[in-house]
């Protein structure tokens, strides 16, 4: 308890030591809007809650590490599930709020919150039994904390320890999106009578995070890559993978859309959720990659694609993405292939 008192005092000192602008950030309600958005994302929060709270047999008396704990909601779920102790780590000043929240909910002796980089801090336990983390970004990997989770796994997780969640799969399908593409991309061709095409190339190279209706899907979805968090390494986060999209109907393909599914296989009964267009809204929405050309496809034809993803060399949180495509058809008038480069930053 004494150390906890120091914690709170330390947090207060940190707050008074902060530069004025930082204090504003910490105290600004609007800056915390993203946490509100995430907590209001029921698919996300409820899946985590069920994965943790419904598996008390796994959490009972275990030491748990919450990577990127934010408002500490996952840490508190773990305490509810019977964890012996939870360590929450986050770089953001949100952790100061989290400390208040944990205290108000009477869990301050069960949860230790540490502000800092996972690579630089020291944990009060040499090893942990379970890692929980909500690390996923848009398109799974954009601004994701997965590398931090992998670092924590390698350094702190006991042999046969558990990771929640432990599987992430990226899916892609082709969509008909003529109207919206015209609105988003074609818009720059004629802005009140002026040619704004310099901005068009920029718009094309920026993947669009937005919700897509399932009826827009022209092809079956194809799973591109599954990351197994027990075994994958940071090197696996840069990849180049071929996949095929089978067309379901005669239509046009204006864009490829990507999303991901998350699995908690450590649970007694696997819990999973999807961020795809076929299911409930999540704050991750989907990520749309517009192609420069329009593919005219017929039912049962296939599009051979390649997805190349690598972290930007200058800024590892940014992503360089390339999509290669080749429509497989006997009809040479419709044959089309090419590749497009995107940057998420």
């Amino acid at each position: 308890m004494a150390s906890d008192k120091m914690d709170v005092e330390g947090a207060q000192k940190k707050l008074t030591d902060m530069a004025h602008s930082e204090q504003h950030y910490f105290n600004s309600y609007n800056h915390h809007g993203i946490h509100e958005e995430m907590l209001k994302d029921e698919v996300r929060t409820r899946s985590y809650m069920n994965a943790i709270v419904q598996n008390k047999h796994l959490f009972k008396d275990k030491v748990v590490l919450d990577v990127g704990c934010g408002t500490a909601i996952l840490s508190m779920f773990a305490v509810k599930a019977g964890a012996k102790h939870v360590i929450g780590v986050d770089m953001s000043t949100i952790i100061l709020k989290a400390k208040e929240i944990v205290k108000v909910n009477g869990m301050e002796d069960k949860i230790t919150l540490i502000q800092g980089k996972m690579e630089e801090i020291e944990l009060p336990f040499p090893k942990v039994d379970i890692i929980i983390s909500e690390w996923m970004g848009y398109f799974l990997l954009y601004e994701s904390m997965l590398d931090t989770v992998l670092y924590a796994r390698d350094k702190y997780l006991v042999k046969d320890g558990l990771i929640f969640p432990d599987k992430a799969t990226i899916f892609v399908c082709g969509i008909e999106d003529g109207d919206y593409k015209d609105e988003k991309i074609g818009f720059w061709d004629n802005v009140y009578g002026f040619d704004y095409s310099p901005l068009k190339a920029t718009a094309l190279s920026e993947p669009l995070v937005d919700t897509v209706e399932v009826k827009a899907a022209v092809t079956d979805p194809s799973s591109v890559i599954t990351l197994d968090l027990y075994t994958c390494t940071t090197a696996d986060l840069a990849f180049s993978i071929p996949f095929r999209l089978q067309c379901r109907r005669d239509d046009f393909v204006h864009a490829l859309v990507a999303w991901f599914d998350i699995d908690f296989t450590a649970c007694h009964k696997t819990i999973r959720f999807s961020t795809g267009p076929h299911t409930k809204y999540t704050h991750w929405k989907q990520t749309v990659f517009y192609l420069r050309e329009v593919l005219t496809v017929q039912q049962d034809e296939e599009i051979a694609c390649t997805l190349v993803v690598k972290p930007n060399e200058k800024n590892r949180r940014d992503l360089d993405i390339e999509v290669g495509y080749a429509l497989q058809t006997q009809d040479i008038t419709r044959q089309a292939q090419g590749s497009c480069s995107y940057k998420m930053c």
Partner: protein
Amino acid sequence: MATSSKPDRPVNDNPLSDSESDDSRDEEGWNDVEEDEEDTPEVISLLDDRVFPDVISMLAHCKEKHSFDFLGVRQKLQLDFHGCVKLVNFIRQRVHEGLPVSEDISVADIDDDAYLKPVLDDDAVIIGLFDLPELSAPDAIIAAQSGDNGALVNDLLKRNTELQEQLASVLLQHENYQAAVSKTLDERWGEAGADDNTKKTNQTAGKGKGKDGVEEKEDESKYYWESYAGVDIHETMLKDTVRTDAYRDFIYNNKHLFAGKTVLDIGCGTACSARAPAHPVCLAVDASDIIIKARENIYRAGLSDTITTLHGKMEEVALPVDQVDIIVSEWMGYGLLFDGHASLAPVSDPVWVSENGEAFWADVYGFDMSAMAKGIYDEVRVLHWPGDKVCGTSSAFKMLDLYTTTAADLSFTAPYVSRLTQDVDAIDGFLIWFDTFFSPTAPPSSAQQIPEGQKVEAANVDNHGVPDDAVATEWILDNKGKRNQDLVAFTTGPFGGAETHWKQGLLHCDPHLGEKKDEHSVAVNENSSTGSGNQQQKKKNEEVRGEITFSVAEDNARALVIKTTWDAGRTQQSWALR
């Protein structure tokens, strides 16, 4: 730049529906997609009654069973699509009449437009003609290649070599051009690496969980300029047709005012407004990097010689002229102010308050997260507020006339009064917005000097025909209630119809104000029907009046502090707008 601020396309699923999501991945997968396939029509053989799934197999059948090579005939006669249609109908007609069909068909046989009319309704063969392989080169050329016509071959080969060389040189030029362009863009857009983090922290775009922690924000104003360099915000602004149409209409409808004049466009952005007809000399100034794109736009519009772009803050750039005739600017900040007048109206919406106020944080999945609600009443919330949740008449509390406005005018106190349009349990807050008016008549006395715009002008001019309480949507109508084409105005308020990118500002009242201020009065009122502070039931037609005060924030020259009093001055609250 990924962003969550874009307008969403409609989503079928209610995001907050409360069904279980243990496994929210619909196992049916894609089955709920409408199956809108049509039955592919059967392909009926040209020469008998058999049917086939496609044209290719049908033609193979004709060749095998009837020794009729359709593709061979097509090749021989060099038939295009229409030729093939005629050929098909010619054959169908002959079969229909019971006449024999041989491969000895000449172009003359089928050269009759009557054969363009299908013999069979919805003949799948004709539709299937698209699927046939391309015609190969005419026999003449094939013969030429085989050596009969050496000169032609040599010519073609030579021409081919020339074209290849040309292609190589064009490709090289293109590559150089690409390199040059990307270098320029890297320089202009990829700011010094150190700024990247600051930018990230500030952007609510991305998944800004604050994972990067809080970096030093040395220059708030730098962020302001940087945020204007992204493409998104300019798309938002240009697509805000209320805004762009109004500026365009005013400029285009008043060509006579612009002819031969020197025009200054402050904060020109993508330079859309910088083109006034009759080609005046135009200076476009913007401190944001978007001006690089503006230069390209201007070049493409062929206006380089009339529009000069200057990159920098208005206060710092040196203009190539001493004075300008006209200033065009679109300088209202996000959410608020200042070009016409600002208005206020009380709002009441218990549902919104319970979903977005303190109550939400009081119970998040069974946890008390009230700490997150700290500051919830301290800042102006920028949002689209539905007009039907406004519970009183709007009150225009401040008129700003750009000809006479001084920097000091941005700090003011003004009275407001609103009459309630319905009974309410409580006033949850006040909504503020502005109306903008473009006045074609310049006041005779104004010197229009820049950049020292802070100079106090004589205030004895009228408001160019804009009364203090004008409402944009009404002001543009003539006495008969029709649209007056000479007048241009727009509102960013909740009653204007079209939404604008400025949205409105909500001053969310702190329901605990009264308690904090005077606990005794709460106790006194305990048994009466009214609560404390703004938690008072109010009747329709009751007046809400008080004062509203704008001041510049001490720590940030671009931030505002807005204070409002109500209940005869007994209650007051301040909000920051950053």
